[in-house]
């Protein structure tokens, strides 16, 4: 149990990389990159977790009554999620542009075009 979340994060990263490398469609590749991003969220939050802890939000909790989990990693992850989505949008825009210019979004066909 004490390493399981880290291993899951590693697995998600590796499977995402596998998908990226073997993808035949750039839109699918962007989706795989989103999977890779998810691994960082899992890792960061797993590092910040504390057994029996609760969220460091004191609107409905008296400070000091319960142990709280680490807020710093949560803050990092929070911004990362939204910014990651806009970066996904940027990559999708690139894919759309590639599709417009070359008529295909298969990376293998694209390298044939160049050569």
């Amino acid at each position, binding site marked *: 149990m004490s390493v399981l979340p880290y291993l899951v994060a590693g697995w998600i990263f590796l499977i995402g*990389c596998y998908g990226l490398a073997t993808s035949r469609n750039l839109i699918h590749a962007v989706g795989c990159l989103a999977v890779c991003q998810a691994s960082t969220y899992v890792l960061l939050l797993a590092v910040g977790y*504390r*057994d029996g802890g609760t969220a*460091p939000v004191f609107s409905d909790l008296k400070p000091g009554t319960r142990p709280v989990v680490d807020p*710093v990693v949560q803050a990092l992850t*929070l911004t990362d999620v939204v910014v990651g989505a806009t970066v996904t949008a940027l990559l999708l825009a690139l894919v759309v542009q590639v599709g417009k210019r070359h008529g295909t979004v298969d990376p293998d066909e694209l390298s044939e075009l160049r050569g």
Partner: protein
Amino acid sequence: MSRRARLWVLAVGGLGLAVLLFAASLELPGFGGDWHPYGVRAVEAALARHTSNVVAAVNFDQRAFDTLGEESILFCAALGTVVLLRQTSDEHRVRPEPARVAPPVRRYALVALPVTLLIGLYIVAHGQLSPGGGFQGGVVVATALHLLYIAVDYRALERIRPIGLYAMADAAGEAAYLLLGAAGLIAGTAYLANVLPYGTFNTLASGGTVPLLNAAVGVEVASGVVVLLASFLDQAVEIVDADDPDSSGRNSDQDNSGRPRAPDNSDQPPAPDTSGRTPTPHNPPEEKPT
């Protein structure tokens, strides 16, 4: 490199990485441990500044400069998308035909739109108190507006979405964040320092500059996402290639009539016709030779 060789390289690299990750995870502090030195200090600092949502305090007070960087990434990503997906000279616009949506769905969307909008604003406004904040609430607000596209009609969305205004709001959100940071300099302390009075714990006005920075981020995220989606929608719904004879009939948003439509260039200057193949409105649709 052949496909097979590439897979081998991937397998070797992946295996090596897996071994390294496994070794690293054994050395990490155990999951659920009690040792969180930064977390403990962050909670103390947030409570000292009367901010009840410690995550918001970390984002907009203790690590506000870092958030400025994140926000700039978001701004640049939105900018880059708009530049990449702009209408080029060999493309023209086609007015999408009105979509036909089942009446119950349409009614649901018209009810859900204000509700979702309200929830988004609530999430933004309560960012310093309960879970939520500008990043999350901004996305909810932007999604709420797009209920009009997904359940009513693209043209209904266009009516409430003057894109220039949202682009300006995007920039204004970013600028507000920068200027609020400068307030710290004017007050004689550091950039992005929390210079306002901290207020009463667990009320809307608590946390000094946190609610203001939060609101600035909310405005920026909401309008940034609207601008992003607008450029995607433009590409997917309106913009078509000039040398695509089918496009005028085929590419309408929800095409179901089968008759070719004339490109409506009333608000757009006609694309410069370099190839001479731009179909005029009177051209019958013809099959493109292979």
